[in-house]
């Protein structure tokens, strides 16, 4: 399974990367994507997640080729 992971804003700064490319078997959910890409770091409590640019819950399924994003609460407008 191939997953592109993106990070934004303060979360991007705190983990020091804007993107990861995962090539792993055994990833089933968005939470798995985080855990696989950031094994030593818990996802901050208020973080939001998106799959293919739509908001999802952390227990949402992912599939091969998905773009998964993690970011803090939005502050636009």
């Amino acid at each position, binding site marked *: 399974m191939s997953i592109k992971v993106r990070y*934004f804003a303060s979360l991007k700064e705190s983990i020091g990367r804007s993107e990861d490319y995962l090539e792993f078997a055994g990833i089933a959910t968005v939470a798995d994507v985080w855990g696989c890409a950031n094994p030593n770091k818990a996802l901050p409590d208020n973080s939001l997640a998106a799959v293919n640019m739509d908001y999802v819950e952390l227990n949402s399924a992912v599939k091969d080729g998905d773009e998964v*994003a993690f*970011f803090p*609460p939005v*502050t636009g407008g």
Partner: protein
Amino acid sequence: MHIKICAEVFDPWQEIQLHQHSAQNLAGKFGATSVFIGTMRDFNGGDDVKGMTLEHYPGMTEKQLGKIVAEALQQWPIINALVVHRVGDILPNEPIVLVAVWTSHRGDAFDASRYIMEALKSRAPFWKKERLQSQAERWLVKNTDGYL
């Protein structure tokens, strides 16, 4: 309907005029226009702010704004709508966001523009990082609810 992400400073009044003149379905047909403009202030939370950087998630921003406008179209008889949002480096007094809605009747224009603005604030993937007078930088943590 038009959604625009803008990396340069924009003039909200010019954007509205251009949109209104170019929209074929508006001339003579709309009675109400409700416009909201968010502008950068030179202070926040008791501190002087020199500027800010607006980060966004290209693609997702447009997708989410498109959904928000589509939701508004389902709820109110909107004749036309315009959403413009800045990204990049912004200075105090520069506009950050513009939402304009054209309808037949005023209640719909007020309701729909406010709905779009609130949804944008809570769901459009933008993040603000302020530069203070002290040179310190800080990410804004959370938008507040504009209906309270």
